[in-house]
């Protein structure tokens, strides 16, 4: 809770300005949003300059250390090419840098996804539906069956192999229709859960804002 008056007053006003969106879009809300976005962007630029640009590029170049961690000369050249992207005549040079970045990023993402997500989660769905000797075996078996059913039904829902007839939209094969229906239920439940989590997070943030506002106001009106 801000204790100093200027910061507290500013946070109080900005919070009210954002809450003014309850009555619709208005200039106060826009001013507050612009302030937040601008402050965040400016702060990001400062962080990037202090943590990346200066220590990785400018400091080595100023110290004439062209070969070092991060290859400052190469990084600077690529950065300049990227800055030429808005210029129409030399924009293809910037496209080379973007292509390099996208290619490396996609390669890293795919490799990590295969090893860190796809294989482990596929393996997690290979479960036994037999209770076994475990005292909680029945519970685990039911859970495994639900996981397997949910996985297969969800995959069945995303089956787009239906053929459409003349004058009628495409439809799934008859055997896949009940599977897709079950998968739709699982997908709905997942989205509902995510919505509930988002609602819970939003309420938590709102309570934080209300608490801060009440704390600032209590400085003047007294209270708890």
């Amino acid at each position, binding site marked *: 809770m801000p204790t100093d008056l200027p910061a507290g007053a500013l946070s109080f006003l900005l919070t009210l300005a954002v809450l003014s969106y309850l009555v619709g879009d208005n200039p106060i809300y826009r001013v507050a949003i612009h302030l937040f976005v601008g402050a965040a962007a400016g702060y990001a630029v400062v962080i*990037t300059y202090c*943590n990346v640009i200066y220590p990785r590029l400018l400091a080595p170049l100023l110290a004439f250390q062209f070969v070092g961690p991060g290859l400052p000369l190469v990084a600077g050249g690529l950065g300049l090419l990227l800055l030429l992207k808005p210029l129409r005549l030399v924009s293809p040079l910037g496209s080379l840098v973007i292509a390099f970045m996208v290619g490396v990023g996609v390669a890293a993402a795919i490799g990590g996804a295969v090893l860190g997500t796809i294989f482990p989660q596929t393996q997690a769905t290979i479960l036994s539906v037999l209770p076994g000797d475990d005292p909680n075996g029945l519970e685990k078996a039911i859970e495994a069956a639900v996981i397997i059913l949910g996985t297969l039904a969800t995959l069945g829902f995303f089956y787009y192999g239906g053929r459409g007839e003349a004058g009628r939209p495409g439809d799934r094969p008859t055997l896949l229709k009940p599977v897709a229906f079950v998968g739709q239920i699982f997908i709905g439940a997942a989205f509902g859960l995510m919505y509930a989590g988002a609602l819970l997070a939003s309420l938590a943030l*709102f309570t*934080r804002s209300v608490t801060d506002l009440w704390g600032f106001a209590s400085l003047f009106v007294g209270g708890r």
Partner: protein
Amino acid sequence: MAVIRCQACGKPNPDFLDTCQYCDARLKPLTVPRSPSEPAPAQVGVVHCQACGKPNPASLEVCQFCESPLRPLTGPLTMPETAGVVKCQACGKSNPAFLDVCQFCESPLKPVDLTPAAGMPALSIPTQEDTPAASAVEEAPNWLSSLRGATPAGEPETPDWLAGSAEAAAPAEDIPDWLRGMQSATPSAPEPEPAAPAADVPDWMSALRSAPAEPATPAEDVPDWLRGMQRAAPSAPEPEPAASAADVPDWMSALRAESPTPAEPSTPEPLAALSEELPDWLRGMQSEAPVQPAPETPAAAEVPDWMSALPSAQPESAVPLVAAPSIASEEETVGEVLPPSDSAPDWLLALRGAAPEPEPASPEEMPDWLRALRGVTPAKGTGKTDFLRVLQSGEPEEAEPASPAVLAEDSGEGGLTQAALPAWLAAMRPVDVEYTALTDEADTYEERVGVLAGMRGVLRAEPTVALPRKSTVQVHKLDVSEGHAAQVKLLIGLLTEEGQARPAPKMRVRFGPLLERLIIVAVLLTAILLPPYLVPGLFPPPATITPETQAAFATVEGLPVDRPALVIMDYDPSNAGELDPAAAALMSHLMRRGIAVVTVSTRPLGAAMGDVVLVGVTEALSQTTGFQYASGTHYLNLGYLPGGAVGIAQFAADPRSAILTDFAGTPDVWAQPVVGRVNSIGDFGAVVLVTASPDSARAWIEQTQAFAAQIPMFAALSAGADPLVRPYYEGDSPRLRGLVSGLFAADQYQRQAGQPEDSTLAWRRDMLGSGLFAAAILLAGGNLVYALMGALRRPRR
């Protein structure tokens, strides 16, 4: 090279072609070459009817439309013999010339007419009696006689001995009176020498004796009527014997020599000599007669067949009407011995190969294939077709109109000639279309680009026919009604108003959605603000802890103290209200256990959030424990890690190359004691992931999989990211060993760790509990209202 577009198919053709190379349609109109002084004919092969004016083929005698005569009757010699058609005098229908009786009514078609044809020498009346052979020939129809001969008048098939007997002329009694009259009225032509010798000696024997036949006929053998004719005829000098071998005719000389001797194709001298003695009127007829290649033979058209056979009985010294067919070449034979072309239909003449010279048809009139068949080369007899000559010469050659004489020479007598169809057959032909003279479409377009640059007449990339055109002819007038005019006026008004500036319309405020929004806000504010004041402690602190939170707590409890823990602060200030308590609880727990904390973030604002939390935790711990935590020794904020997933992978592999300075800007960050022994992410004691984004959590989990698989990793998540990150915790081999999800879990963890409770946390617990309860009621009520409204609207639809 000019291009001519076919009028039938529209495709371009070179100008040297007469027919379209695609559809064989004629490209050039039929024209007749003529001399400049000669008036232009109307149309070759077309005769316009004088009655109806419609075009008819020239081969027709009567109009095929109105049956009016196409040619005026000029006299007895204008019989349509040239067309090979004889019109029956009884029924009036057309018949082929070779028929004796009408094919429709069987009336006799041919009256005996001995009037000589124009240009033909006068006939000598035979004085000998008709022989059986001659009779036999006479009995046969013309066409049969001609077919027998393909040779002159059938006589060559007659043996000499029979020829000798046949030399006997028909008796004078056999000649009808009308014929006699005609003969007497006809100026006597140079009388040939008496053909046959004395009747005692047959001709074949005379031939064997090699004795020349007596040229003169004994006077006693001459009938009276013939004598009369001779007397009436002007005396002509005796012609010189034609043959060089005295009295021996050529054919006989050729027989003796047993070698073929070509007959003289030209007019024999006796005939020329005779022509000098012709009367004036006959000379006039001859001069008017067209020059024909084989006019020597008398016009048999007007001579009966039996009389046509008689020339063989004429004196050999006379006009050599008949040549020796067996030894003469075909061309010579055909040229000399065939009966006049007028006497036989054209088709028959065509079969004989001795068809009369066609009408002065120009080479242009004939199609190419016909020209090729005839062997006629239109241009100077080069034997090549037009296009071939053009290709060889390299430049187009103007078509030189060939004269009929040239055509006659080039065509040859053995070539195909254009046969004239009989009228009854010609009437079945389609009507000749009168071609209009077309001007050649000279394409002067010259290509300027590409490999065809400089060439003319090339096909253009965009043909002119494909270009959009707009007709300049007004095909119809618009019928504008009053309604149309009103609509046009309205449209003009609308267009005019669009260009004028108008004040912006006032925005209508929809009170419905605004009212709903205000109601929801009011309910939530009431539920959030009132309970802490009205019913404090409505939601007590959690007495239990969830398994994932307990797992996270247990993991921290089991961490070694000699290795720092890496806390990833990947959330922005907007999520601080939810994640700050969890992050603070975890850091406080770690630092209470003496584990150094190192923070890093892939978000620029996350680095600041990490610094705020670290400072708050250390201050709180310092106040509680009295221990002073120092940056670089007990904790360290590495700051911002750029590069996203790539930066994470680099940091996992080599943190020293990924981070050069800490958040405070210390240059030699890795020389600090807290990270002095860290060379990879595996050197950390644990990885604590604090994030509100499932993507960030997945990226750290995936990219550190290969380098930090053995070190524990657990996460403090936002409640919204929990469903998507939980699978990494609940698997058989979970990557995450614990979860602290949301504000409730943070409260549980704080209590589990024995940390002092924040004074505001109780408020927030009450507000959050009542707010969630109100949200659940709103969701249920909203769904119920939506279902009821849908049920109410459904019947209306």
